Structures are given as C-alpha cells and as structure tokens.
C-alpha cells in the first residue's frame, strides 16, 4: 500500500480515537440512565422551589382575614369557586435573586425578604373576574362596572375577603329577636313611628318591614352616640342589646305599605339614578343585604331629609356621603318619591 494511503488511514484512526475520547469526556455520566436524556436533569427540574404556598400558609399570621375569607363567598367550596389569598396578593415565595434563571432551591419567602402586594386599585383588580363579558358563563357574578360602581373603588362597599359581607355592616344577627317581646317594648316608639310602624307625617321614619339587623345596629349607634338625634339618643340609652334585637324583630314583622305621603310618582328618568341605589337598596327598595335599610314604602319626606342630611354632612356614612353629593334637590325628590311608592315584600 502506498505510503500516503497508509498515513491517511493512520490519520483516520487517530481522528476516530480523538472523537471517541471527546465523546467520553464530554458526555454526561447520567445520560442514558433512564432514556435518551440526562438522568440528572429530572432531579434538577424537580428541585426548583415552588412559589405559591397555598392558603394554609397565610393562616397563622393573618388569622382574622383568613377567618373572614373562609366564611365568605370567596371560599365557596360547595359550588367550586374559591379565590385563594395568593390570587390577589401574589405568591408567598419568591425566586432567589442570585440564581439568574436556573432552577433555584432557595429564595425569599413572605414575610422574610418578600413583601406581598396589597392591591389598592380594586377597580382594576375585581373586574378581572367580575366584569360582564359575553364569554363569561352566566353562573359567574358579573357587573357592568360603570353602572354598578360609577367611579368608586370596589372596596368602598365590598370587603374583598368576604365580598357579600358589605363594608360598614354587621354579620346577620346570631340571635334573632323575639317579636312578641319586642311588641311589649315598643310602646314608647309608636308615638313618633306610627301605631303600626307606618309613619304618617310623624317625626320618625316608617319602621314596618325594615331589616331587623339594620334597626338593631342603628339603635346601637344611637346608644353609643355614633349617631345623634335629640329624641333617639335618650330613647336608646335605656335599651339593652337584647331589647334592640327584639324591637328589630317586632318592627320587621309589621306589614309595610306605600308611604302615605307618596303623592307624586317619580319622574321616568329617575331609573338611571336609582340604578346605583339599587346595588344596596334593591331595585324596588328591598335591600340586597339584611344589614342595609329597605327604602320601599319609606316616608318620602323622611327620605328627602335623610339625603339632605348626608349631602350637608350632618349625617355621615362611608357609602351614602359621596353618593348624596352627586344628587340635586330635584333628584332627591324624585328618588324619594320612587321609593316611597314602591311596595316592600
């Protein structure tokens, strides 16, 4: 064989040896361990640190909020709708900032070295689930934001952890009062509030058919001085919580009617303004929560007085005060007439 062929073959063999050696040197030892891949990479991928911790992680430090949440509608396991803490607040664990990208087994956890977000712009956050979109299933609670809330933040009315438990209200009474007992205690009330709780030009508002929880709460405010009225303050001073519950029960059981001073029908255009009121007070003046007052059949004059008091700042309420400021006198007359004419059920 000519020399150049021999040397060529020798070169081939040398190259082959080099290639095989390179392969041996560079190939990872764990390759082919479980298949055509690097066996070690399975462990590396699994080693990455989870960031979302789950709701139990939050419970120990944030017990009151957790309790609110677990009893609220955002934790409705029965219908499969659960909004967990980290959905709004972000994950309880973070990425190790030193790690660059690769799988990190360490990283900060809340609260150490990791602050969680407390959403402030709820008007952007809540509609992510609750804005009315055509593609959303009907079973999902949805609103047209502008009509529902105007320019307000959701948290003005809604407790985000328990949204149906509305801000500034109490949980429905644990001990519903006794109407019969309440009747016996109500004698002093009838002079201003009407013989059967229907106010007929009398100083006090109609109480018949009103929400018992609302009534009891207001009596408590009068007693505590949080709400001021020269007649009601001394009246309420002598009442015990049990009395308040009984009175609330009694009056709520009374039959309500269209208000006697509802002479004028509301003008047709009032429906739009009333739409915002309906969110709490109901379309027909029957409140959506038992903590808020029914307006149906309420004395028209009383309603106007109340709205004016809110607007002037004599009465303050976190929800009513800003809303009343948007109302003109004519609006107030119309709204009052609208509700005074409504029949409560």
């Amino acid at each position, binding site marked *: 064989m000519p020399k150049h062929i021999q040397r060529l073959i020798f070169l081939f063999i040398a190259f082959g040896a080099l290639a095989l050696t390179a392969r041996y040197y560079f190939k990872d030892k764990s390759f082919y361990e479980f298949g055509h891949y690097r066996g070690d990479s399975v462990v590396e991928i699994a080693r990455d640190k989870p960031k979302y911790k789950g709701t139990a992680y939050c419970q120990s430090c944030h017990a009151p909020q957790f309790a609110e949440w677990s009893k609220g509608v955002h934790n409705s396991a029965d219908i499969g709708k659960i909004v967990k803490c980290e*959905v709004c607040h972000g994950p309880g664990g973070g990425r190790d900032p030193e790690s660059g990208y690769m799988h990190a087994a360490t990283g900060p956890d809340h609260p150490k070295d990791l602050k969680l977000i407390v959403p402030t712009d709820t008007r952007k956050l809540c509609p992510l689930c609750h804005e009315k979109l055509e593609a959303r299933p009907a079973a999902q609670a949805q609103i047209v934001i502008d009509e529902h809330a105007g320019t307000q933040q959701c948290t003005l009315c809604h407790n985000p952890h328990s949204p149906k438990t509305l801000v500034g209200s109490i949980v429905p009474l644990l001990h519903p009062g006794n109407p019969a007992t309440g009747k016996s205690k109500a004698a002093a009330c009838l002079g201003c509030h009407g013989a059967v709780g229907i106010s007929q030009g009398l100083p006090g508002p109609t109480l018949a058919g009103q929400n018992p929880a609302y009534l009891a709460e207001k009596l408590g405010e009068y007693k505590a001085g949080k709400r001021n009225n020269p007649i009601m303050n001394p009246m309420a001073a002598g009442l015990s919580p049990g009395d308040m519950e009984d009175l609330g029960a009694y009056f709520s059981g009374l039959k309500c009617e269209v208000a006697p001073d509802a002479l004028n029908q509301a003008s047709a255009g009032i429906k739009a303004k009333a739409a915002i009121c309906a969110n709490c007070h109901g379309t027909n003046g029957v409140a959506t929560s038992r903590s808020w007052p029914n307006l149906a059949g309420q004395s028209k004059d009383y309603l106007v007085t109340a709205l004016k008091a809110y607007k002037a700042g004599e009465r303050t309420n976190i929800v009513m005060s800003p809303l009343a400021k948007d109302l003109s006198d004519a609006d107030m007359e119309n709204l009052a007439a609208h509700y005074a004419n409504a029949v409560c059920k």
Partner: protein
Amino acid sequence: MDEKKDLDKGQCGRRDFLSRLGCAVAGGATALAAGVALAPEGQAAVAAKPNAPKIPGYDWGNHHYAFGVDATKCIGCLRCVEACKTENEVAGDAHHFRTWVERYAHVEGEDKVRIDSQADPVNIAASDSEGQYRFANRYKDVKVDKAFFVPKLCNHCTHPACVQVCPTGATYKTKDGFVVIDHTYCIGCQYCVQACPYGARFFNPVTRVTDKCTWCYHRVTKGLQPACVEVCPVGARIFGDLNDKQSSISQFVANNRVAVLKPETGNAPNVFYVGIDKDVE
C-alpha cells in the same frame, strides 16, 4: 547491484516493519479508546441501574398524570396565565406563554367565529402592561350569539412530536408522564418549537433555550398542584393521577364526555377538555 537491491530490500523490510508496527499501535490505541468510551455504558447496563431519580419523597413509578380543562367554567380571568409566569419565571411580555386562554365569540350575522387570546394587541392595550393580562370588553357593542373561553397549555402528549424531533435528547418524557426540557443540554435549534402542533413551545430569549409548560413538575413532585390549577378560582383546571381512581381528574374523565385537541396528529395528548366547540383547535 544485487547488494544494493538486498540493501534496499533490507531497508524496505525495516520500513515495512515499522509502518506495520505503527498501524498496530494505532489500531490498539483506538481499540482502547473505544473501549474506554463505550465501556461505561456497558458497565451501566450490566450493573444494577438506579430505577428512579433521587427526588426526595417522590417515586416516579406508578403514576399516570393527566390534566383536565372544563371550558364551561372558565371565566377568562387570566389569573392562571399570570400565576404561571410568576411561578416559572417566564418573560413578562405578550409573546412567550406556557399557558394561555382563548376566547371564541360567535357574533350575530357572521359565520366565521372571532377568536382572540390575551396576547392579542387589543387585549394587551386593555391591560396595564405587557406582563399583566385581561380580556378587553370587545363585544359590548355587538350581539353575541355564543361565546366562551378555552384555556390552553402543553398537552404532554403520549407520543410527543417535540421529543421525536429533538436532535440532542434535551427534551424528553419522564416515566411519570411529564414532557420536560433539560435547559443545560438544549442547543436552541427550535426544531421542537416547529414540531409542536399546538404552539405550546417557545424560545426563551434570556436563556436562549426552548421552554414550555412542565405541569409544574417541581410542584407536583412535592405534592402540590400546578400553579395554574392552584389559582384558578372557578375550578376550570384539574390535575391529578389517573392511577388514583378517586382523584378529581379520574372523576372528571369518568363522568364527562372528554375531548382532546387535534387528535388526528396521533400525538395522543393528555389534556382532556370538556365544553370545547367545533372551532377549537
């Protein structure tokens, strides 16, 4: 003359001998190198191979994981998309997603369905940034006959086309059914991105390797749910072990008529859908 010839022959003989010896040495060296290069595999084959990767507290045998999507429940809130991006360090822009949600809307009078995802420029404009997602209220001025959301993610197919085409073995299917990517081995050729019929894979511009949904392997092996399943507020995403007959996924598959996407590819996807429609690919 004859002496010279003999001398030449002698010299030729020596040269021949030396060259033959050189060949023998070279051949021997190669054999040795080959032996050394190939032996570890042989030894591994002979010796007892470890049966499972050493993941603390987890045995990858005896699992058959699957994913369920109930598109009748999805409200398109996109919390899953954001949670996945946070959990898995996915680039916070509108072009790289491990999971996404599609919206299908049949508008009255149109026979072609309108489809968009959260990555659509209109929806990105409605959100605060490219890293936050919401569906814009696009159809409020038209009459919509039928509309719904469909979450999408990697199907972790039984016969994954992406694994088939990977030239290095950087992407593979684990014994417990997860199709994952070895980010230290991938060369970034993006053939797998081309091969996936579902558009589940993408090229990570930071790490310069390909990436995709892993069904949160790092969470599942610790007994947790994937991040998207964890945060979904309406239970539209279900994950679990089909070997466990009581698991939610087993119940889901047993109690519903389930469908898969693009069955004609033969990839045998493992994400089972309830409530999708003829237009959903």
